[in-house]
């Protein structure tokens, strides 16, 4: 199947269209809110919340007996929020560290959820099938009404985020200062937390409990590498998230036996890896290149300074010296000498070199600059 065919299919095939739309919206909203989570240094909170949502799903099913995903999501939301606030309670009231609290809530809630799920499976109730999908997610089970729910929640998120943009931003940057300006930081804080939990819960059906945290983190971590502006970062994270959703769906649809969730996560991981390496300002590649360039400059400067030392002893700065003199000096290579010639700092004449006037001055300047730095 080629690409044009696939694109046609996306528009004509109900299931594929629903899934593509669903994963795209999901990616966008998690990317957006994930940026806040990452900047608040709460990256792993998402992992804990998604696991903590599981018992809520099971209990909602036990109470209502309904498989309607909206009812189950409300259960997930409540238990996710309980988990979140319990984590805060543990961290603030005991000496346990935040990572222990996260790990505790994550594993204990999940284990309890598993107990309930296996208990439900043994019940004589025909409706039970399909709760498993919340473990690993099954994008294929998305229906139009799910996509509507996602779209509505995303819309609300967007409105709230745009309305309180200024407040979110200042809280993320400097909480104490925000307080002194007279803002109620607790309200802003709870608002952000509730929306993060909401986004996570929304994604459970599609990518599942286990992989949900990656949807939150990966687009945001990738986006951070390309920009130094919060608004651009949030926007880019939404784009990266949505693209991961669309691409992931396409890849998994084009092959047999490929579940959508893991593929989406891997696509997002590729975005991250690409951004880490190739981002022009922060990326590892350019950083390495700059590092090498700096080292070369340093070698060049060292050679030049050394020549300057020799030249200083003569009244005529352009007095020629033998290249041999440089051989024992570690900064010197044929390469650096050639570069110095290229820069017109040095003139070569057979086996002899001499400093030019510019070369001498540059070297002298280097020297004074370095000595002031040493102070």
């Amino acid at each position, binding site marked *: 199947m080629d690409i044009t065919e696939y694109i046609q299919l996306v528009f004509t095939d109900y299931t594929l269209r629903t899934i593509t739309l669903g994963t795209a919206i999901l990616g966008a909203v998690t990317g957006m809110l994930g940026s806040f989570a990452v900047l608040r240094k709460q990256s792993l909170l998402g992992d804990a919340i998604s696991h903590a949502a599981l018992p809520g799903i099971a209990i909602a099913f036990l109470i209502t007996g309904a498989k309607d995903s909206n009812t189950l999501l409300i259960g997930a939301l409540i238990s996710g929020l309980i988990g979140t606030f319990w984590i805060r309670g543990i961290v603030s009231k005991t000496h346990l560290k935040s990572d222990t609290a996260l790990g505790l809530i994550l594993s204990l809630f999940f284990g309890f959820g598993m107990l309930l799920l296996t208990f439900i499976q043994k019940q004589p109730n025909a409706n039970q099938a399909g709760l498993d999908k919340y473990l690993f997610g099954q994008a294929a089970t998305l229906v139009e009404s799910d996509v509507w729910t996602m779209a509505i929640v995303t819309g609300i998120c967007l409105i709230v985020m745009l309305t309180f943009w200024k407040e979110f931003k200042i809280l993320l940057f400097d909480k104490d200062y925000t307080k*002194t300006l007279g803002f109620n930081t607790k309200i802003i804080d709870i608002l952000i937390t509730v929306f993060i939990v909401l986004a996570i819960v929304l994604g459970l059906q599609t990518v599942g409990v286990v992989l949900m945290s990656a949807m939150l983190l990966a687009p945001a971590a990738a986006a951070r590498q390309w920009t130094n502006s919060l608004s651009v970062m949030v926007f880019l994270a939404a784009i990266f998230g949505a693209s991961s959703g669309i691409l992931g769906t396409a890849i998994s649809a084009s092959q047999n036996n490929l579940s959508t969730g893991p593929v989406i996560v891997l696509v997002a991981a590729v975005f991250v890896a690409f951004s880490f390496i190739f981002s022009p300002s922060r990326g590892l590649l350019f950083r390495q290149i700059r590092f090498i360039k700096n080292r070369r400059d340093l070698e060049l400067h060292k050679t030049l300074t050394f020549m300057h030392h020799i030249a200083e002893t003569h009244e005529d700065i352009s007095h020629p010296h033998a290249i041999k003199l440089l051989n024992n000096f570690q900064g010197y290579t044929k390469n650096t000498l050639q570069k110095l010639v290229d820069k017109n700092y040095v003139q070569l004449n057979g086996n002899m070199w001499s400093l030019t006037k510019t070369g001498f001055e540059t070297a002298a300047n280097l020297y004074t600059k370095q000595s002031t730095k040493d102070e």
Partner: protein
Amino acid sequence: MNNHSVDKETPASTGKIAVKVDDLTVAYNYKPVLWDIDLEIPEGVLMAIVGPNGAGKSTLIKSILGILKPIAGSVSIYGKPYEKQRQLVAYVPQKGSVDWDFPTTALDVVMMGTYGSLGWIKRPGQKEKKASLEALEKVGMLSFKSRQISQLSGGQQQRIFLARALVQNASIYFMDEPFQGVDASTEIAIINILKALRKAGKTVIVVHHDLQTVPEYFDWVTFLNVKKIATGPVKDIFNDDNLTKTYGINYKVSIQE
């Protein structure tokens, strides 16, 4: 509310009391850090708060600003409770208290100073931007306005924080160690701005570490070590006696160096 105690610390300039702290006691996890502090800061002074590490200097500022909740005592700004006088007060936190890798620019950080007067939801507009640019100019950072904040030096970051407070156009400024980790030229720039603020009739309160520079920079000083040791004009009370009381026996020697 109550004007029962008029002490000797009557200010030189205007006679008004800018900040009044009554019987303030603060405890972290119920471990006491500030004990029964009574403090009156006259309007128009440039005051240093000095004391050893762990003396509660930052805590004092933070509890005056309502960031920390004291277990006893009250704070008033120009005779009214702090909550009602917030717009008169600006705060410069310690540079290390925020994540400088945050994706934002210098101008953006300075603009945050306008958020308080804007209130909820309303966005900063041209007026706020103009004020922020002016504040950046005052601290000599105008050419860095679009710089990402992580690409600024320590001294430049401190100037940005100062500009953010300036843009609030407050009457009272609280600063937590503004000279910590800054270069010499920034230190001079900052102290000149502080002196200009005092000239304009503002009150400036600074948590300060470097005892040598106290007489040169400040005209008022508070010695603090869990309790208030002394407060008053530098020329009257900045002496070996108070230093010894605050820092312990051997402090005299090291300050004369």
